[in-house]
């Protein structure tokens, strides 16, 4: 049983099929994924409101589908309106920020403004992180908003080992390992550095094959009990506001 906390709905400009509802369901079935949290690719790379609207419709198609609203801090007022529009929707569990696409850094005042505005809500944040500077910026946010829970998407990407050291002292930063490179020691070192309860399972599906990340977990020499934490127990606790699964 797996909960995938990093998925996407929408097309990609690459040599792959567009994944509609049926094809996504088939993958979730085949790979034993019981809950998947999606953000809209259209919302990330283009128009966040149009993408979020499509996501909301998509989430109705299956009980396993949950979502992040993508916000674009370049449009601060509209981003705040967007969250208020969907805050009562139980299928929305959080906010996705992608500083590389929006070109608004995590230490920009507009980013802080968004987080501050919704810091008292149940929403979690999935933050695309790539490189040490972004990880450092994330720790500043985590320190400033200690009750807000952040997921460091990709664990900082190709400098993940340095990024783990940077975020380890921040209990409200969780890490998830997906990347184009399936480093054999990434999951194990994540557990050893930040603790097993802060390592989540995420894949970047429909961009990346969940089997790619399952292999990263399976090669880590974990006990069956440890795998349970990674595959779903930590995510359940995070999604239920800190309550144990």
């Amino acid at each position, binding site marked *: 049983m797996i909960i995938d906390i990093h998925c996407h709905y929408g097309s*990609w400009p*690459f*040599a*792959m*099929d567009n*994944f509609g509802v049926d094809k996504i369901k088939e*993958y979730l079935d*085949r*790979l034993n994924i019981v809950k998947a949290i999606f953000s809209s690719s259209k919302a990330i790379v283009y128009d966040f409101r149009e993408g979020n609207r499509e996501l909301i419709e998509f989430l109705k198609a299956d009980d396993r589908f949950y979502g992040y609203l993508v916000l674009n801090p370049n449009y601060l007022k509209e981003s705040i309106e967007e969250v208020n529009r969907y805050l009562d929707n139980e299928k929305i569990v959080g906010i996705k920020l992608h500083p590389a696409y929006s070109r608004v850094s995590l230490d920009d005042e507009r980013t802080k403004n968004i987080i501050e505005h919704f810091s008292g809500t149940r929403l979690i944040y999935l933050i695309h992180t790539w490189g040490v500077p972004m990880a450092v910026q994330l720790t500043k946010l985590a320190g400033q908003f200690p009750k807000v829970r952040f997921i460091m998407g990709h664990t900082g990407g190709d400098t993940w*080992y340095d990024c783990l050291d940077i975020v380890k002292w921040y209990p409200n930063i969780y890490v998830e390992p997906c990347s*184009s*490179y*399936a*480093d*054999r*020691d990434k999951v194990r070192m994540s557990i050893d550095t930040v603790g097993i309860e802060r390592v989540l399972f995420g894949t970047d*599906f*429909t*961009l*990346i*094959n*969940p*089997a*790619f*990340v*399952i*292999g*990263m977990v*399976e*090669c880590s020499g974990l006990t069956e009990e440890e795998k349970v934490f990674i595959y779903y127990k930590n995510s359940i606790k995070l999604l239920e506001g800190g309550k144990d699964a």
Partner: protein
Amino acid sequence: MKILDTNTNFGFYPYRKVDTSLDTLKDILKSYQAKALSLSLKGIFYDAIEGNEETLSLLKGEKDLYPVATYDPRAYPKGIEYLEGLRAKGFLAIAFFPRLQGWIIDFAPFREVLDVLKRENLPIIIHTSGYGELTKISSLAKEMENPFIIAGFHYSNLSEAIAIMKRLKNIYIESHLLNSPDALEYIKRYVDIDRVIFGSGTPLLSFETALDVILKSTLSEDEKEKVLSKNFEGILGVEL
């Protein structure tokens, strides 16, 4: 089902502390009863000829590990004579690492190297990525009979691999970075599954990831067997 991994290595990894020893590689392969082509990291990071000698020396007597040579064109012409008669020395293929070593396919010394390699039909494995790299390789490969196995294709540049493989029969794609959910099915649909060669990048990268991508795909058992061993054995013309 036989597993033949065409992308493994061993030795010291300088960029972070990680166990990439030959013993670890052998343990991983043993747990899957896999065979592998392999080379010493010394040949990539330090000196190709010294690394090649280490590869031959350490893999001598290993029944499930087959030596792969390497050469760093930045050192040309130093050591170029070593590339004569690689098969007779015991190598099954030669691998190049332009991305790690910082050179590009349009590098004149690399053309000189290929001129030597075209004298024997040894598979040429190239670890590269980036838009346009395979297109440049294709212009070199069309003048040769050697099979070219390209490692480094993932979701963002799979389109280039498909376009080139449709035109050139001696281009193959190595599987370890095929990370889009339907990459194998896509290659099967637009090219041929016979053109995919299994590789993992272990022990630096996850063997299980590379294997899971094949085993958890919708390919038939016969097609999985082709990817995992038979396609490469077909290139070599021998069963390993």
